[in-house]
């Protein structure tokens, strides 16, 4: 086991996280999600992503494509609330709205940059399983010059729509990483949520 930073990055951590920001919302009637539906959602998202990464468009254009996909399909409010953690409890409605908006832009920029690493690659859905109250769809990512690696998509219909709320790349959990990062951002500002919201708008 090579324990250096490069080895970590070989897991394509951040690149995979970029995908995690993408979610598919289908206007399905309110009923319980099934394994097949969860799988179908990821199939469609993966199809969209594969189309973009193999479109031959410029990187800048692709970046825009991915950002649009993200802002349209991610369950941003849930991701934002979870990333903020305990601090979300004492936040006002207005603060949560402002944070969610700023955080969505921040996430788009942060992970959108990583999408270029997927150019020429592909993702294949290999399975799906129910876990507690949500579904986990398992896929393999095949990137040029890399050993294939596992990407798990967590899908829920709790918001009223079928949405992704998390992604796990070879064990590395986007929500967990984001919780740690947002916690650190808040600590740096001595817990001042408004200051963090202001900074998030220009971060990265």
């Amino acid at each position, binding site marked *: *086991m*090579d*324990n*250096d*930073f*490069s*080895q*970590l*990055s*070989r*897991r*394509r*951590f*951040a*690149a995979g996280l970029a995908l995690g920001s993408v979610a598919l919302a289908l206007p399905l009637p309110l009923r319980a999600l099934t394994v097949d539906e969860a799988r179908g959602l990821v199939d469609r998202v993966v199809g969209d992503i594969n189309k973009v990464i193999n479109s031959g468009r410029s990187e800048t254009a692709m970046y825009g494509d991915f950002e649009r996909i993200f802002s349209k399909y991610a369950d941003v409010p*849930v*991701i934002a*609330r*979870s990333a*903020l*953690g*305990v601090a*979300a*409890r004492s936040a006002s409605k207005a603060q949560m709205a402002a944070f969610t908006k700023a955080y969505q832009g921040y996430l788009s920029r*942060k992970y959108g*940059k*990583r999408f270029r*690493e997927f150019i020429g690659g592909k993702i294949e859905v290999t399975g799906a399983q129910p*876990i*507690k*109250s*949500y579904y*986990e769809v398992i896929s393999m990512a095949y990137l040029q*010059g890399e*050993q294939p690696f596992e990407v*798990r998509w967590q899908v*829920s219909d*709790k*918001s009223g729509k079928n949405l992704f*709320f*998390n992604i*796990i790349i*070879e*064990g*590395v*959990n986007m*929500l*967990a*990483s984001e*919780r*740690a*990062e947002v916690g*650190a*951002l808040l*600590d*740096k500002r001595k817990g001042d949520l408004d200051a963090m919201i202001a900074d998030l708008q220009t971060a*990265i």
Partner: protein
Amino acid sequence: MLENVFQCAFRARNFMWLLAVTALTACGPAPVAQGINDPYEQTNRNIHQINLAVDRNVVRPVSRLFGDGDGFVLRRAKNFAGNLSVPGTVVNNLLQLRIADAGQNTLRFAVNSTFGLAGLFDPAGTLGVAPKPTDFGETLHVWGVGEGPYMEVPLVGPSTARDTLGTAVDLVINPTNLLPEPEVYVGVAAKLASRLGDRARYSGTVDSILYDSADSYAQTRLLYLQNRRFELGKGKPADAATGFVDPYEDPYGQ
């Protein structure tokens, strides 16, 4: 006659060794750890600062010489260094009693060392014989040794007590250490080049973790522990290793 006695003694010794390993593995692997066990956090954070300084001033600038880290020559160096590490990997496969993995790695080594021109190319991979990487840290895990405290090792990076011991043992038990003098250095140089190449190849990702995070120490630690536990858990649900909470059930993740 004497020869036979020696042979018998040798076999018996091997047999005892196998028994010992079997006994160890019979205990079963250690449970995959959860949460973060970092009692030496302040020391680790100091070492992290040193590692950051080394990366910023030496590793990253030097790695820039490797371009995108995916050139033809660099790939050969990477393959060569990787191939040289395979015998050590096979030793660990065997110590874990993962005989199929040992066989697959041995096949890779045989094919790549010959048809792959001493490991410069990877025809085995092209034929679909994928590497089965492992290390002595995993061997210790299989033998039931727990993860131990998290630690950041100077010039190496994130690790745990168990994995640091594993890394040290791997350096010693690799059979290719026995290569004669000039060849050994070629191997070391290839390994160094391959590391620097990786730093170049993944610079965007590495830089974002090391230099764009609010707390790069915490991010590195989380990333390492989650990924390592995933490797050791071999396909267990991600929740078990990461202590994940469902944001719909527990919105504030308490």
